[in-house]
């Protein structure tokens, strides 16, 4: 299960808040890692480790919003939940625009936070799985010959064998053979699955 490997990162400059959040997460069975500032987090964070982030909006030095900006720059896509003592509307809007999953005002109900954490971890896992899948599709795709890739491009456009044969100037029988090889190389059961793969890739 994802729970075993996922880490919930906590970034808050208030030590007592950090400890209590860590404890809450631990009581709910999560593994928590705490950081006292955004800078510390950037330094210690390994993007390959799965998990999510609970981020304090208002901090000395780099604020939550600043860190979000840094994520964009560094292409870090960690799902994060913003917590804030006094969430002023412009900051909340800003935070949401910059990709926060949610903004929670302190104090908050544990089930709301944990629900968001679960959701975030799920999202993270999803993203990571998609990433893996995309990588697999990509590598499969690279094994296709040019003609096969050509056939596949037309297949996923929903064109029939005959149309493809006419467009490519080859016999329908050859198209059929290419189609079988594409499906095999792409480890797809059907053209429908092939379409999903391409969509995944394009996402």
């Amino acid at each position, binding site marked *: 299960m994802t729970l075993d490997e996922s880490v919930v990162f906590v970034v808050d400059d*208030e030590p*007592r*808040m950090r*400890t*209590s*959040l860590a*404890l*809450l997460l*631990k*009581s*709910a*069975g999560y593994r928590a890692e705490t950081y006292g500032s955004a800078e510390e987090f950037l330094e210690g964070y390994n993007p390959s480790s799965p998990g999510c982030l609970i981020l304090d909006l*208002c901090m*000395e030095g780099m604020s939550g919003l600043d860190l979000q900006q840094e994520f964009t720059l560094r292409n870090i896509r960690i799902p994060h939940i913003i917590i804030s*003592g*006094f969430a*002023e509307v412009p900051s909340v809007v800003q935070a949401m625009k910059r990709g926060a999953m949610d903004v929670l*005002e*302190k*104090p*908050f*109900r*544990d089930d709301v936070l944990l629900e968001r954490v679960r959701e975030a971890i799920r999202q993270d896992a999803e993203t990571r799985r998609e990433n893996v899948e995309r990588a697999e599709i990509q590598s499969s795709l690279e094994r296709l010959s040019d003609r096969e890739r050509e056939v596949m491009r037309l297949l996923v456009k929903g064109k029939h064998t005959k149309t493809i044969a006419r467009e490519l100037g080859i016999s329908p029988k050859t198209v059929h053979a290419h189609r079988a090889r594409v499906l095999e190389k792409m480890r797809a059961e059907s053209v429908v699955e092939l379409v999903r793969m391409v969509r995944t890739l394009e996402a």
Partner: protein
Amino acid sequence: MAGPVLKQRESLHGRLSRTVGARNGRAGTATIWRATRSFTLVASLGIVAAQTLVMAALVAGDVPIPGLYAVSVLAVVAVSWLLGLPAGLIGCVVIVAANTLVLGVIAHDVPVGPFEPIRLFGILGLLLISGAVGQLRNYRDRLYKELSDRRQVEAMLKDAQKELVRQVSERTEELAASNRLLSVESQERRRAEGALWALAEATSSTVGSDFLRSLVKHLASAFRARYAVIVEHLDEPVTRVRTLAFWTGEHLGEDVEYEVAGTPCEAAARGEFVYHAGGVQRLFPNDSMLADLKVESYCAVPLSNSSGRILGHVAILDEKPLAENLCQNPALQIFAARAAAELERRQTEERIAQMQTDLARAYRLVSMGEMASTLAHEIDQPLGVIANDAQACLRGMRSGQLDSDETLAALDEIASEALRTGEIVRRIRQFVSKRAPQRSTVAINELVRQVVGLVDLEIRRRRVALELDLEEFLPKSHVDRIQIQQVLLNLIQNAFDAMDANDTEGRLTLRTRSAEDAVWVSVSDNGKEVPRDQMRRIFEPYYTTKDDGVGMGLSISRSIVHWHDGVLRARARPDGGMTFEFSLPLQGSKS
């Protein structure tokens, strides 16, 4: 009293001078006369003796006639002189007869004829002599009479003089007695005047409670009464009063509050002039204070303000009956008026102080409102921790994910965070509470740190660099903690606003320093400076340079600092920004 004596003396003098004046022309004659009188007496005696000798010689036989005549003439002169004119005339007759008898009868040899020319001539001569002498005698008698008159007058004059002297001495005695009386009176008067002067002097330079205390002391002394008291009415209609100053004869008494019912103050409280010359304890048997103080007499004058409202009264009480109705005494009325003015001034002052306290509180509420989000965060923070910890405990106990040490630590944390929250709430409530200012001994550095605690978050949010430059071993000050916190908070918020107006990174410096008799607290920023022409106006009420400012912060701050006998001033810093600093008197430097 001197009148009759003097008049008598005058009339005597008049008579005397008239008498003397009438006789002045004959003064020489009188002197000659007095000289000749004794001579005449001796001569008369000689005549009689000579006559007797002549008689004897005649009888013996050898008589010179001319001697006889001479003796006769002398005898006539003597008789006329001594016994007067008629006696002289008779004497003449007798002598002539005797001579005739002696010469004719006894001597025989002398031819005697009554009408003999020589004899006639002799008789006529005798008569003339007798007449002249008699006339002289009459004249002498008149003079005598005049003299005796004069003597009488002189005696009368002497008597009158004596009487005068007696009366004068009597009068002098009287005058001396009355002088003595007067001097006692004037001494008494001087003493009373002195007491009044002392009263006026002692009360002229004092104000406030000092004035009232000084007044009762000197009132008692001026009116020679044991007690004097000034009483303030506490409600309307008056049921309770409070003494503001109470002279007990030797010292100032403790101020007390009491019900007026059943006391002589009841009438005074209604605004009446009250005077009980004596027996006041019998009139008010339920007033135990009168009995305790052995009060016998009571006199009170109401004190009313300029609009005629009765604010209190001044009463003079004594252990003995009062000699006069002091209510009518102008001095008491004057000082009562002065005390009334003082009472009015006190009440006005109290009202102003109350208004200022209310205003300061209102402003604290305003600044609290401005800080609301910061403060809310201050509270949210521990509440968040508590919520997290509690929820973690619940969850951990249900799921077994937390061991008991972790749970215990979390519970511990919950308790301390809850207390911390309570402390913050208490601090806020205290800050906005409606209360009379109260001085206590305060360590100013600690107070500065508390205020920093309040604005800490704001400082971080604004990314202001804070420098605390607090003097070590700063002497303690005697101030109202909340009000000084308010001043400091005001100055810090002003600094924030000034730094907002500048783009440079904010630097806030809080500094404490001790001077000879005060502690100085300063708040410096590197924000926008106050233009020189506005420097003087910034402490005025409702003067503001901020768009959303009320203009009360510095005005209230200054009145708070003044209330603490300190000063609040502003100056531009040489390297930009402003410094606001205020002084607070050291503990014990002001009673």
